[in-house]
């Protein structure tokens, strides 16, 4: 029987079928796509994997009516972690943006403004902070809370640019026991005062952030 050294790792670059799956979930994206070239690279951190997943997304015109879409999903992880880890990152991002409250925010992104509080379907609430810039995109940072999931909160950066396939920043957090490491902010730092209103300690369950963005008309 083959014995794998403990440190053996595998690098997987997935396209093809996995890319198609991602596309199937983003039907609305192409309905509103304005044309031109778009390249977005996201970094996804999940509790299932130690290393980040790098998701790249490229859309370019092929002819007048057609677009060529290339997606890659790259992760370096132990063999045993790969079957769950590879798919879970994008799947979790999809689950978050399919949530009714998040979907509502994305549909109404142009009506949002800084330092306001919005009520959302299901009693959820979105408290916005300031406008910031992530990978060159202007975003509005906010904190999403849902009374039906009181132990969780989502930090969200929303851009008005419809060519970004995912929000530029999503951080799903869950309440942790006192003494555990608390979450910290690298992006959307204007959210800190809003987060400090809650004295509880939160840990990061999932994070997606835009690390590169390129757009040409």
């Amino acid at each position: 029987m083959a014995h794998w050294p403990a440190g053996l790792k595998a690098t997987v670059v997935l396209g093809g079928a996995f890319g198609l799956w991602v596309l199937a979930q983003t039907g609305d994206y192409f309905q509103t796509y304005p044309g031109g070239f778009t390249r977005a690279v996201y970094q996804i951190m999940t509790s299932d994997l130690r290393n980040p997943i790098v998701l790249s997304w490229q859309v370019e015109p092929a002819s007048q009516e057609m677009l060529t879409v290339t997606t890659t999903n790259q992760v370096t992880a132990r063999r045993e972690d790969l079957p769950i880890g590879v798919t879970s990152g994008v799947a979790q991002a999809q689950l978050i943006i399919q949530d009714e409250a998040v979907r509502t925010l994305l549909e109404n992104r142009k009506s949002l403004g800084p330092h306001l509080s919005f009520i959302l379907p299901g009693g959820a609430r979105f408290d916005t902070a300031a406008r910031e810039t992530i990978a060159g995109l202007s975003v509005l940072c906010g904190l999403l809370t849902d009374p039906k999931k009181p132990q969780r909160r989502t930090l969200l950066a929303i851009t008005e640019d419809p060519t970004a396939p995912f929000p530029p920043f999503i951080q799903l957090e869950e309440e942790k026991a006192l003494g555990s490491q608390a979450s910290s902010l690298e992006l959307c730092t204007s959210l800190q005062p809003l987060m400090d209103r809650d004295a509880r300690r939160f840990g990061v369950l999932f994070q997606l952030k835009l690390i590169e963005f390129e757009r040409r008309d």
Partner: protein
Amino acid sequence: MTEGSSFRLSIDLLGLAARNLVRRPLRSLLTVLGIAIGMTAVVGLLGLTGGVQRALERQFERLGHDLVLILPAMPQGAAPAPAVSFDLERIHSVPGVAQAGALLRQTLPIVTSKMQGFLAVVGLSSEMFPLAERFFERFELAAGQLPEEGSVLLTQEAARDLKLNVGDVVSIANRAFRISGVLLPTGETSIEGAILMSLPTLWELVGRRDLVTLAWVVAQPGYDVEVLSASLQEALRPMGSFNVQSSRRLNQIIQGGLEVLRAALTAIAAVALLVGGLGLMNTMYMAVLERRREIGILMSLGARRSQIWVLFLLEAGLLGLLGGGVGAILGSALALSLAALIAQASEAQPFTPTISFSLVAFALLFSMGLGMLAGLLPAHRAARLSPVEALRYE
């Protein structure tokens, strides 16, 4: 042998079988657990799927069997039901249609004196209000009245979220509406939390006079609803892609799917039971081996082979019965917990699993039968022992 002495013998054998089980408590407990695990799965899954089936039947009974539902064909990947262009007037002219109506669900910007946000707004056609109790679990006013022109109705959750009451004003998509009434909790995730208004008013707000998320048709009394369904499909073909299903057919499809799921889950649970049965057979073989001398003594004291056979069969049956009893209790708890978990996770309407007397009786009898079946061969081996050889055994 008289009837009385035969009865006494049976009781004696049963007592002896029960005492034998207690003699090896840990082994008996593990064997019972083997059967109990399988039966927990069977009772839990049958109870759970039975509960889902009953809840669906109740919903379809409420909908009635004369209804045809029309839903826009879902594009791949579309999470919420899409709103599409639909000619309601055209439906009225289809033969067999007694009544037709539609609803539209949109998320719109809301502003009150206290807050702002985006909430679901559901527009109901006028035909839908008198039939609301067919479509929704509960549609009763807690206060006020149904909406008229320029007013809206709030579901209980929307009233709570917006902190509004009858007579207050809410701005929806930059137009002010008075709140005409507040509903009691509807128990329907499709509308609870939404603001309700007339469909033409919502059409005005979104600037499209033909959008719908769902349309429905009630068949004329005595008219074949499947024929009506086919006619509607034909009439709708030029308007786009729609799923047209009678409530009866929809019920059949869902129930059929549930039956398959139920059969598959029961088959999986049956494998666990089979493993439990094999464990029981092993226990009984061990018991025969260990109690050879005892069997020899019983035989030398006059016990017939058939009585030895019955004794071991009773022991196996008792183990099975105990496993079934424990399984029925654990299975009921499992079904109740899973039902609560599903209702919580999916925000669906809570449902009660069907743990009926017949299911518990089935669990007990089946486990006892399985136990006796697994005990057949060991009992046969015990009954065939030679008393002389059995007595020689140390």
